[in-house]
């Protein structure tokens, strides 16, 4: 069924293999359109989770300029001021690049830690950019960060599952 089980089977066309990571990240951003009138900002940023999972599992799947475009798409949907995800997601990619240079040993635990740092950075910076300092959102923000970090393995699973389908690029 999967290409991993059929190593010499037909592979995905190049264009679709390129488009799949983009589609999954955009689908993550689109989770915010579910019909819920949220009183608290507790929903994790699924677009960011998918983006980080792609960057850490398959570093060459997305070009280095992709987070800017995907971030702009996310900004149009998320309610944050336009440009915040464009900037922060790109900075996240640079952050992961820095970790890539400095770490000697890498396993999923380290990836998770890096993702945790990137998620915390994005959410805290997004809060500082979007809301006035006097707002009482810190408690909810900490809860949102915790939920997002705990959901990262799930996002990695999803990305790995998709990546197996576009493996032979």
């Amino acid at each position, binding site marked *: 069924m999967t290409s991993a089980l059929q190593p010499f089977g037909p592979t995905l066309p190049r264009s679709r293999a390129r488009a799949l990571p983009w589609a999954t990240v955009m689908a993550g951003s689109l989770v915010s359109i*579910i019909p819920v*009138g949220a009183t608290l900002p507790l929903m994790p940023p699924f677009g960011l989770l998918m983006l980080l999972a792609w960057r850490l599992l398959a570093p060459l799947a997305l070009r280095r300029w992709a987070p*800017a475009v995907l*971030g702009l798409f996310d900004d149009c949907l*998320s309610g*944050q001021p336009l*440009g915040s995800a464009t900037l*922060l997601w790109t900075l996240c990619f640079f952050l992961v690049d820095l970790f890539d*240079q400095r770490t000697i040993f890498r396993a999923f635990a380290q990836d998770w830690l890096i993702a945790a740092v990137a998620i915390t950075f994005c959410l805290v910076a997004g809060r500082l950019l979007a*809301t006035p300092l006097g707002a009482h959102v810190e408690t909810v923000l900490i809860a949102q960060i915790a939920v997002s970090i705990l959901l990262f393995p799930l996002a990695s699973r999803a990305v790995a599952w998709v990546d197996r389908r576009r493996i032979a690029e």
Partner: protein
Amino acid sequence: MAASRDRRPGFSRRAQYSLFLSYILAVAGATVGLVLLVLSQFNPPAFAALRSAATEVTAPVSSGASAVIRAVASVPQTISTYFRVHDENAALRAEVARTHDTLVQARIIVRDNRRLRGLLKLRDVTPKVVTAARIVSSSATSTRRFGVLNAGRWQGVRPGMPVRGPDGLIGRVVETGPNTARVLLASDPESVIPVRRIGDGMPALAAGRGDGLIDIRSVGTTNAHLEPGDRFVTSGVGGLYAPGVLVGRVLKRGADNAPAVPFAHPDTLDFVLVSEPFLPPPPAAEPQEVPATPTPQQGSQP
């Protein structure tokens, strides 16, 4: 697994250049993001077209999903109503008997009130309802509190119009697209609503906190004591929100400042009413004829 230290993709010049170019593009993207961010900090409604284009596409999906959820949610409710119908009937009959006297009294008061208002020649301004729509989704990942309304310019919704639900005030419209609008909810940290206390009419401001509550801030000259259970309604000051719409109930005792729970929760399962601003906006001020440079007075030297 040891990470490779060499980030060059190989000996191919083409691959090396394309990697370098992608980094340049990434820096350019970050710069564009920074510029957009600065622009939207100084002028928040900028790029409303981009956002409303996105919501135009997503709102129908949200509406459809919301309809499905409503249909599913109505099943257990219908079943429980069917089983509770006998008890409910008895309870309602008892309540009707209990409130009959109060109702008669209230009718007399309403008639008196109308007569006295007629004597005083008071003119009531009743804001015109523009449309009834639903909040179909909200900014669940962001610390800002926005809702997406499934009605827009084609239905007569304009930025600045107040939005109320069945239980109380929800917020006001900030951006409109052809078929959708973005609503700033009352619990958003940047929303401020003029209110007064039911009972003594003490004026105050209801400012959103961002955690689902609103802060009631007194604007009176004397020290205000806010007690748990104090209810606040819109005062109509400023002419945007019609007076008398429920806003919030105070949670904790406070002097001049206390948190309150909003009465209305933006729920995708219920309708909201968009109405015209309570008072028409004032006419734009005529630009005065001011000389560009003050003419120096001749002969002012002593």
